[in-house]
């Protein structure tokens, strides 16, 4: 019970911190908007189902009945429409994407550090980030587009396919999963996946993909700038559709990870001891690997390589709340979201926008060093 109370208190506190950070961040930019206005805009945007409406879709003989839900907004605070547009259409998607990506990376980093019992582990250790980068870079370099125009008789020209940005994300996501699965397949023999082998297979795959990425960059020509921007991590141009995709992928997988926190604690004892305590070690490893690979892939696919969040945030939280994953995982995830929102705010607050990955590293590393100097970390 003590654990549950600690989880609840810490999560509440960090959720409040995240909400405050999001609110403040939404006010920062070329147009300064006070937090009170931000809150009013958000309140106005809240809708609740107000009823059901019937209608039809299509025309003529193809008409189908359609059931719709009517929404209404319970609030109607007076706000400047320009402010509303800036907050809802420009800043919030970016901020929420940052929160989700930070949340995802910190959660996956926590799991990987516990899984590998290695302080240097981060979400990229099983090749996810390299795979995503290779996928994204390959798509950027290649002349292939996934968009086209389809001429349908009677309907006319219909645009189908994916925008360039969505294509990059899709390829990054696929690349991440292919790389992670490749690492897992290399390291698995006769149904067993030794953690040390996994770690080394991850290094090998990362190195190989690094070479691929370097080669593609040499061949990139005028796309090089876009590649570099992607590789350094970026949240600019985030759209609500991206937020929705990440928002649909990350939380269910996070619940899976939460469900395995007790096993993760026991796995810290080492696999032999964990097995002796009734943990199906190989199955647990597969679940943890798959869930954290997907979580990381979802984050990296839309934000590029944002380093450091997955490495440092879990460490910092471990120093604060202790090693118990039942407390550590939710707190680290929330702190990761808060940290990335704050870092991205800094990244876009200046005259010229910085890649967010640069800010996370530049801000996070000295902070981490400060923590290390105050409290010695002998082991993970």
């Amino acid at each position, binding site marked *: *019970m003590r654990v549950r109370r600690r989880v609840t208190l810490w999560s509440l506190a960090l959720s409040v911190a995240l909400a405050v950070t999001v609110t403040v961040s939404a006010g920062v930019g070329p147009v300064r908007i006070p937090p009170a206005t931000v809150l009013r805009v958000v309140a106005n945007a809240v809708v609740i189902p107000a009823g059901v409406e019937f209608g039809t879709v299509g025309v003529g003989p193809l008409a189908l009945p359609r059931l719709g839900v009517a929404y209404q907004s319970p609030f109607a605070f007076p706000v400047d429409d320009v402010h509303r547009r800036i907050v809802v259409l420009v800043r919030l998607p970016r901020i929420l994407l940052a929160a989700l990506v930070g949340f995802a990376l910190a959660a996956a980093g926590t799991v990987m550090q516990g899984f590998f019992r290695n302080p240097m582990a981060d979400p990229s250790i099983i090749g996810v980030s390299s795979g995503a980068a290779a996928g994204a870079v390959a798509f950027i370099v290649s002349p292939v587009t996934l968009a086209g125009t389809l001429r349908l008789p009677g309907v006319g020209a219909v645009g189908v396919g994916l925008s360039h940005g969505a294509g990059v994300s899709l390829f990054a996501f696929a690349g991440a999963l292919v790389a992670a699965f490749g690492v897992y397949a290399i390291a698995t023999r006769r149904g067993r996946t030794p953690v040390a082998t996994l770690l080394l297979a991850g290094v090998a795959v990362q190195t190989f993909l690094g070479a691929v990425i370097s080669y593609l960059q040499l061949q990139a020509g005028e796309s090089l700038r876009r590649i570099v921007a992607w590789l350094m991590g970026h949240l600019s141009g985030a759209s609500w559709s991206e937020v929705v995709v990440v928002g649909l992928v990350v939380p269910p997988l996070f619940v899976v990870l939460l469900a395995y926190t*007790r096993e993760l*604690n026991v796995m810290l004892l080492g696999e032999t001891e964990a097995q002796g*305590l*009734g943990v199906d070690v190989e199955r647990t490893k597969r679940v943890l690997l798959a869930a954290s690979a997907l979580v990381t892939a979802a984050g990296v696919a839309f934000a590029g390589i944002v380093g450091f969040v997955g490495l440092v945030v879990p460490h910092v939280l471990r120093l604060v709340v202790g090693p118990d994953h039942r407390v550590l995982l939710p707190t680290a995830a929330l702190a990761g979201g808060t940290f990335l929102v704050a870092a991205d705010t800094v990244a876009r607050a200046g005259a010229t926008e910085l890649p967010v990955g640069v800010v996370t590293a530049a801000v996070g590393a000295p902070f981490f060093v400060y923590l290390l100097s105050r409290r010695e970390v002998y082991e993970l």
Partner: protein
Amino acid sequence: MSNEVSATGDGANDEVDAERPVVVRDLAVSYGDVTVVEGVDLTLEAGSLVGLVGPNGAGKTTVLQAIQGITQRDAGSIRLAGDALETLSARAVGRRVASVPQETGLSFAFTVRAVVEMGRTPHRGRFEGPSASDVDAVESALARTGTAVFADRPITELSGGERSRVLMARALAQETPALLLDEPTASLDVNRAAETMALLRRLVDDGRAAVAAIHDLEMAARYCDRVVVLANGRVRAAGAPDAVLDADAVHEAFDAEAFVGRALAADGRTVTAYPSTDVTAHRVHVAGVGPETARVVARLGAAGHDLSVGVVPAGDAAALAAADVDATVVSVPPFAAIDESARTTAVEHAERAAVVVAVTDGSGVLPVAIRERADLVVDTADPPTDEVLLARVAAAAGSGA
């Protein structure tokens, strides 16, 4: 003792064999091409402590890990409380056998209580909080092992001995009918080692079954009901400690010369191992009394010499040692004078021996007839080392031949 194997359906047969929580038959395990254990049988019975003894690399840990399904076996069957191991889920196995490892890999600052709570893993549902029985099991495990006093300290701050008790507590919290212990006393001070074994003995007397891989033969003899001697992956001997632990078994299993005697300070055996030598066996007669004579008898007996000893008072250290190495003993009742027949018998033995060793402090208690025949005299004030003793006996036998 509660046995909660029926808690949730893991497809396990709930008709448990409560009397025999672990039955291993014809176990074979190999790593790659190397056969580690072969043809091992092991049965754990409720209320009985089995000592698994043998030299390093004999396969003790492998056997323990195979019982938990951690190490895959090549052949043989393992039944836990009646059910075949391969039909049981990891959770079900964790409710039937608990292991106490030598050391834990845990380097995180979990509190002792949190570590012991990990023992409840096989009993708890994924989303359940700790039940009343979980809390009871943890508290009673902490109390029984004397770890309750530091239950809220991080395990990383404990001494080696304290950590090993925490590991014991964790295994107790699992509430399994069987315990597997890998060198439970290896890293402990003598007092802690005895405490740990006494605790284990009490747990077994309360109805648990246990097997402990132990390299300390005296501990095994003192606390175990049965001893299984493992060497090179095979069972060399199995049975009651007194029947199994003799000089031959130690010699065969450990490749060491050994003196195995009755322990004077405890109910058990005392085992003294020596480095292996390849001396040629001779008939040797030893005369003398007291501990120094006992030492000479033990060492020469362990080296394989055919000994006769006398004249000694019955019950003297030399007489006890002589009996333990199966020497011919010429004795007289304690405090009695050496009578003529004993003296004559002893002299006859001395005359038949290739070497006569006299152990004396110079006070002249040895019969003159024997002292005159002594090929070498061991002065108790300045005794030779084992090595020198064996070399001198060999030299004396050589010159006499």
